[in-house]
C-alpha cells in the first residue's frame, strides 16, 4: 500500500466515523423507535379486529412494503414541498425509514401476538381483565421476546439502509465517504473503508442482540428456552 493511500485512509477514517456516530446512529435509532411505535399500533388494530382501522392497517402495509424505500424517501423530501410540506433532510429521512420499517415491524408484532396461545387471553378474561388490560399485562409482555429477534434483524437492516439518506443530502456515514472518494479519486479504498465502519456498527448490534436475548428470555419467562418451548406446546395441545 502506498504511503499516500495509507494517509488518506487513516485521516479519512475519523472523518467517516464521526458522521457515522453523529448522524447514522441517531438516524437509525430515531427511525427504529418510530417504526416500533407504528408497527405496534398497526399490529394491535389488526389483532383486535377493529374493522375500519384493520383495513387502513392492511392498506398501509400494502403501500409501504410494495414500493421501494428510496422512492418513499424521494416523495417525502423532494415531493412533499410541491404540496406545501417542506421538511429538512434529516427529519425526512427519519420519517421515511420509520414509516417504511413500521410496515415490516407490524408483521413482526402481529405474528408474535398471534403466537401466544389463545388460552392466555381466555384466562385473563376469566380473572376479570378487559381486552386492553389483557393485552398490556399478559399478551404483549409474552409477545415481546418472540418479536425481539426479528425486530433486531430489522434494526440491523435499517442501519445499512440509512445509507440511502445520502441521496437526499443527509451528511451521514456514506455521504462522507462519497465526498472524500470524489476528492481523492480513491473510491475503491474509501468505499471499502465505509463498508468496514458499517460492519463495526452492525457487529456491535449483533453482539448486543445476543446479549439482550439471553437477558430477555431469562427475565420474562424465568426458564431456559427449551423448557419454555415445551410448556407452550403443552398449552396449545
Amino acid at each position, binding site marked *: 500500500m502506498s504511503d499516500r493511500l495509507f494517509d488518506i485512509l487513516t485521516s479519512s477514517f475519523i472523518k467517516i466515523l464521526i458522521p457515522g456516530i453523529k448522524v447514522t446512529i441517531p438516524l437509525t435509532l430515531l427511525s427504529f423507535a418510530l417504526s416500533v411505535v407504528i408497527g405496534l399500533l398497526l399490529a394491535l388494530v389488526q389483532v383486535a379486529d377493529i374493522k375500519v382501522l384493520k383495513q387502513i392497517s392492511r392498506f398501509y402495509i400494502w403501500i409501504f412494503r410494495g414500493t421501494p424505500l428510496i422512492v418513499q424517501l424521494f416523495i417525502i423530501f423532494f415531493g412533499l414541498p410541491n404540496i406545501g410540506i417542506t421538511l429538512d433532510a434529516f427529519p425526512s429521512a427519519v420519517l421515511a425509514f420509520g414509516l417504511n420499517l413500521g410496515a415490516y415491524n407490524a408483521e413482526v408484532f402481529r405474528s408474535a401476538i398471534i403466537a401466544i396461545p389463545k*388460552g392466555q387471553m381466555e384466562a385473563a378474561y376469566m380473572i*376479570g381483565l378487559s381486552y386492553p388490560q389483557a393485552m398490556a399485562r399478559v399478551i404483549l409482555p409474552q409477545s415481546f421476546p418472540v418479536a425481539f429477534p426479528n425486530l433486531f434483524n430489522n434494526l440491523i437492516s435499517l442501519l445499512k439502509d440509512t445509507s440511502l439518506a445520502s441521496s437526499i443530502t443527509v451528511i451521514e456515514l456514506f455521504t462522507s465517504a462519497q465526498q472524500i472518494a470524489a476528492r481523492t479519486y480513491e473510491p475503491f479504498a474509501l468505499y471499502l473503508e465505509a463498508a468496514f465502519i458499517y460492519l463495526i456498527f452492525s457487529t456491535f448490534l449483533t453482539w448486543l442482540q445476543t446479549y439482550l436475548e439471553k437477558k430477555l428470555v431469562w427475565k420474562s419467562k424465568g426458564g431456559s428456552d427449551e423448557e*419454555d418451548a415445551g410448556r407452550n406446546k403443552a398449552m396449545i395441545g
Partner: protein
Amino acid sequence: MLEVKDVYKTFSSGYVLKGINFRVDKGEVVAVIGPSGQGKTTLLRCMSFLEKADKGTIIFDDYSHDMTSISPVDIKKIRMDMGFVFQNFNLFGNMTAYENVCEGLVTARKMNKADAGKIAKEVLDKVGMLDRADRYPGELSGGQQQRVAIARAIAPNPKVILFDEPTSALDPELTGEVLDVMKKLAHEGTTMVVVTHEMSFARDVAKRVVFVDGGVVVEEGKAKEFFDNPKEERTRQFLKRTMREY
C-alpha cells in the same frame, strides 16, 4: 346461583349443544360427566362467554340475561364473580405464581398491592404452593401449575368456580394433589361445577352428578343414587364402560 336454560351451540362441525339446561345452587358441587366430544367443555365455555351460544338464557345471581345479546359490561360483571380452571392451566407465562394470583385482584379489581399480597399468600398456602410463590409457570410441574391456577381462581372469592377436566392433562401420579385441593374447597362450601372423568371424585365429592351426551343432559341426580341406580340406558352403558377402565 347459576343457571342456563335451553342453550344451543353449533360449530362448523354441527350442533354441539342442543337445548341443554343446567343449574348449580349455592354451596353445591356438581360433577358433569359424559363421553368425549359431547359438549361438556362447550357448556362451560358458553356459561363463561368464552364461546357465544346461538341461543339460551343465563341466570346468574337472580339476574337473567339472553346469552346471545348480553352486553360486554354484564359479561364482565358475571366473570368478576366466576372462576375458571382450565384443563391446560393457562397460567400467565410472564408472571410468577404469586403475580398470577395477584393479577386479577390488582389489575381487574383495583385492590391495593398489600391487601392483594395478603390474599395471594393465603390462597397459595391453601393449595400448598406458598413455598414456590416466586416460581414462573415454566419452573413448575403440571400438578403444581394447576394448584396455582386454582389459587388464582379462588383469590377474588368468586361465587362459583368452573373446572374443565382439571386433572386430565396431568400425569396420573400428579392428579391426587389437585383433587385434594378441590376436595378441600368442596368441604369449605365452595360452589363448584366440575367437568371430570374422575368417577371417584364425582361419586365421593359431588353432591349432584349431571350426565351429558349428545348435547343434552340425559340424566342427573344425587351422586350416590346416580351411580348406584342409573335410570337411563345410555347412562348405564357409559358407567359400565368407564368403571371398567378404572
